[in-house]
Structures are given as C-alpha cells and as structure tokens.
C-alpha cells in the first residue's frame, strides 16, 4: 500500500486558513521548486505589465501620425552605426519607433489571445459538458462536428472563417471589425479541444458515485453539471487554456503576418513582422526580427508555464 495510507487526519484539528492551504499546497511547492517556471511566470507577468502600461512607458505614440516623420524612417538600433538614442531599437519604414510599436503590438496580441481563449473555453466547456452528461444523439452530433473540425488545423479554419466573413459583409471597415473577426475565428477554431477534454472527463465523473448520489437526492441535471461536475473537470481545462493562449497568440500573429489579421494601422506583433519582412533583403533586419523575438519570448514563457502546469496537475506524475 506504500505511503498513501496515511491520510487519516484527526477530525478534531481546526481547519487551516485558505491562504495557508494555498501556500502549503503541493502545487505551490512544485512551482517554487522549478526555477525555470518561476522565471517564466515572472517573464509572463512582465510582458502583461508592459502591455497594460504601454501608453505610459512607451517613448513615442506610434498612432500619433503628426509625430511621425519620414526623415526618421528605417533608423537602425541605437548600438549600430547611424543609430539614434531617440529610437532604442530603431524605426520602421514610416519612421515609427520600434520599441513603442512592439509595446503597443504586445497589447493587441495579448488582448486578442486572452479574449479568444476565454471565448473558445466558454464554447468548448459548455458543449463538452452537455455532450458528456446528456450522451446519446446530442453527444453524437456535437462530437461528429468536433471530429470533422479536428481534421483541419486551427489556422486553416481561421483563414476560412475570415474569408467567409469578408465575403458575406463585403469590404466593411477592417479597422473596426478585424479585431472581432479575429477573436471569432480563433474561438471557433480552438473550441474543439476543450469540448473533447471536458466531455471525456465528464464521462468519467458522470459515473462516479458522488454524481449518482446527487441524482438519488433529486438534484436537477443542470445543477449537477454546474455545481458537481464542472469544478471537477476544470483541472485539465486550465492546462489547455494556458497552452492554447500561446497557440492563440501564435495563430493571431500568423494570420496578421499573412495579411488577414490586424491591419497595419493597429499593428499586432504579427503585423509588425509582416511589415519588416519586406525589408529583410535590404539589410534592415531589425524591423522584422525585434517584434519576432518579443513574440517568441512571450510565447516561450507561456508555454513553459503550461508545461509545468500540465505536469503538476497530472496525478500520474506525482
């Protein structure tokens, strides 16, 4: 039986406070033990802070057209020949400060990423719960749709949705709508994984005796799903959400790079790289590389967090 049999806690001891339990939990411990994870968390936090505070910490306002001068275009980073201290990381073809552009781009990339993750999770969790708990025809229908969609990578679905939306609404104002189109297409591309995971955990939980006990008591199905099953299937959802945040940011950047994401008037990191790509051959590498590095480091940090979370929440690896 090994050491697992020692969970007998005397019932007379007072219950420890919530804070105490969080600090003392295995999760916290495994977090603090992994230096890489702590670094990744700090890094992610810094990126988020930089994004939130962009208007305050950015040296220039890249949207202030009056402040731009074509004379400042394509200035290299400060440590290179012809670099200027006004523009730490140099400027792009329109004379926008790259550092400021990256800070604002980060903001857009993160907002799109986070919103689409929430939207995808909301769709996926509710469909997964219903499919798993109700079973039968509803389950078959939802899962067949998921199966068909899973055959296609998210990026392809997002491209198709983007194309279809533009076909339906014609050339509506991209500056306003591309943000929403992006979030919708990302959410509709990523819901499947949540739905499948939640469904399979729901199938397991549904047959556990605590759910049967709830049914014997007479609790209605909707409440059983929300109050009893949902909290017990959320663990893997957090893991997927973290990993998918990284994936959503990458996909958004890719779409913007391909020219169907954020427009150049509201550049995300992907848009910036796309702009810079045209100048790669003429030696102005910084316009593409710096936003690219920022994107890669952000995604790496989030991925590291997701990796750790997956291992820490996997009971088999304890």
């Amino acid at each position: 039986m090994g050491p697992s049999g020692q969970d007998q806690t005397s019932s007379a001891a007072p219950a420890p406070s919530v804070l105490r339990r969080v600090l003392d939990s295995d999760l916290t411990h495994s977090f603090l033990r992994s230096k890489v994870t702590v670094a990744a968390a700090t890094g992610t936090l810094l990126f988020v802070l930089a994004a939130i505070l962009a208007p305050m910490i950015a040296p220039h306002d890249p949207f202030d057209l009056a402040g731009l001068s074509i004379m400042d275009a394509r200035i290299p980073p400060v440590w290179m020949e012809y670099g200027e201290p006004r523009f730490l990381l140099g400027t792009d073809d329109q004379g926008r400060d790259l550092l400021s552009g990256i800070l604002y781009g980060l903001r857009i990339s993160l907002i799109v990423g986070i919103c689409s993750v929430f939207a995808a999770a909301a769709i996926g969790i509710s469909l997964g719960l219903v499919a798993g708990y109700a079973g039968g025809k509803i389950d078959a229908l939802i899962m067949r749709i998921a199966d068909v969609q899973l055959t296609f990578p998210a990026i392809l679905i997002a491209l198709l949705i983007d194309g279809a939306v533009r076909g339906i609404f014609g050339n509506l104002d991209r500056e306003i709508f591309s943000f929403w189109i992006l979030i919708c297409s990302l959410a509709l591309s990523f819901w499947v994984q949540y739905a499948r995971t939640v469904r399979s955990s729901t199938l397991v939980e549904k047959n556990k005796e605590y759910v049967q006990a709830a049914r014997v008591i007479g609790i209605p199905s909707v409440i059983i799903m929300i109050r009893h099953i949902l909290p017990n299937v959320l663990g893997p959802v957090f893991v997927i959400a973290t990993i998918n945040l990284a994936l959503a940011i990458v996909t958004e950047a890719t779409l913007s790079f391909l020219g169907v994401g954020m427009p150049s008037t509201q550049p995300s990191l992907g848009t910036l790289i796309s702009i810079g790509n045209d100048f790669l051959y003429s030696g102005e590498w910084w316009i593409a590389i710096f936003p690219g590095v920022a994107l890669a480091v952000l995604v790496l940090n989030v991925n590291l967090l997701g990796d750790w979370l997956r291992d820490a929440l996997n009971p088999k690896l304890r």
Partner: protein
Amino acid sequence: MLGFALRRFVQAVIVMLAVALIAFSMFRFVGDPVNQMVGMETSIEAREALRERLGLNDPLPLQFTRFVTNAAQFDFGTSYQFRQPVADLFAKRIPATLELSFTSALFALLAGIPMGIYAGLNRESWLSKLFLSVSLIGISLPTFFIGILLIFLFSVTLQWLPSFGRGDVVEIGSWWTTGFLTVSGLKALILPSITLGLYQMTLIMRLIRAEMLEVIRTDYIKFARARGLSNRAIYLRHALKNTLIPVITITGLQLGSIIAFATITETVFQWPGMGLLFLQAVQNVDIPVMAAYLILTAFLFVSINFIVDILYFLIDPRLRVKQA
C-alpha cells in the same frame, strides 16, 4: 478486417460529404456568385441568364448534388480573380505542395521519433534535457518567424541557399513537375521543408516521450521487471509497441496538418504551391478556389486518417478480435 475497413470508409465518405456541404454553402451563400462573375455594367437580363445557366434557380438539394458530382470529377468552376478553371490552377500547384509536405513529413518523422524514444528512456540525461529545451523553443517560435530567421541567416547573410521559389523543375508526364531531380530544386527545398517540419518534429518528439513515460508506469511493465527481463527487452519489446498506438493516431493528424500549414511556409518562401493560391483566394474572396482547397485538403486528411486507422487495427490485437 474487411468490415472494419468498410465502416471506416463509410465514415470517411460522410466526413467528405459534410465538408462538401460547408464548401457548397460558402459558394452559394457567401456573396452572390453571379455578381462575382460579371462586370458592373452587365444587364439584369444577362445576369438572370447566367443565373439560369449556372442552375442557381434550381432547388438547393439538386444544386448540392450537382456540386458534389462536379467536385468528384474535379470540376470546381471558374476562379473569380483569375477567370480560369479552378481545376487547372490547382493542377499546376499540387506537385509543389505535395513535394514540400512529403519532404517535411519525412524530416519530422526521421528526426522526431528517435529523439522522442531517447528522451523518454533517458529522462535524466543532459541530451534529453537539451532535446526538450530545443523542442520548447521550436514550439514557441511561430512557423513564419522560423522561416524569416532561416532566410535571414542562410540566404541574406551567408547566401548559401535560395530564399524563394522551387529552383529548376523537371516535368514528368504532362501533369507533374518535380524539384527532386535538379541541384537547384533540392537546394530550394531545404529551408522550406525545415521550416515546415520543425514544428511537427517537436510535437512528435514530445508526444512519444510523454507516452513512453506513461507506459513505463503501467502494471505490466512493473510485472515485466519482476519477471527479470532486461531493460532493453522491457523498453523495446513492451513499452515501445504500447507507446505506438496513441502516437500513430496523433502523428497521422499532425502529418495531415502539414499540408495546411504549408500555406504559411509557401507565403514566406513564395513557394508556388496551392497554399499560396489559397491565401490569395482568401484575401480576394475568391470563393471557388477556397471551396476547392477545402475539399482537396479534406480529401488528403481523410485519406491519411483512413490509412492510420488501418495501421492501428494491425497493431492492436484487442481491436482485431472485437471486430472478428
């Protein structure tokens, strides 16, 4: 076996029909096909005549049936932007995409599988940790950025390899062009295939490692140890084969998605494949091309999945008996 294959085949056909329905709805309801095909000055009568000729006034089920019949014969109509038959446009570009995808898949499998097995078995060695760190970076770098970095390093800075196009191609028959037979063609393949294959390689490697670690924890591996088998026998004979089952499924899906991911790589390297064509179609709302691309890629995915299912069946005796 036959019954199993038949059932899977029927499922594949249903998936294809579902995809065809989506493609059809896009074609029929996203914008008005007639408006896309004619100029501004065309009269209402001429439009109506075209509408009648295209059969757009027929009942929808009939239109759908016609759409499916045509698609099965590779007839996807006329591209809005190029005013050419969609089938011709694709015929010219399919070889480029398939050659690129094949090379990348080969690279991903040949590098990913051994690395995954090694990292799963030697969990603590520095080399596995290196593999794992590199794979994390590989997953975190967006495909297009990897392409840009490779171009910047090997084309712009070192000037070793070309940064765009397929190089010189040789025609085989009347419908296939290959880059495998010329030096410049092979050189042109290197950067795009690494760009495209790197992500799949890291995924395959991580997957095999994770599955290996799971299998090693099972009771039958513990019992195999208690029987006194050598580590080698335990890992190669028992663990690896059990690892393969989930790996094959997911690897199949991954290889299928290579064809779709090729869109990005083709854009970065200006590779004249069908991904590039598709992207132009999305930007210009060229619905017939989009619909055709959707059906073609779906067909490739479904075929790969079908093969994977059959493989699965051959490996797992539990399935074989249940069906018999």
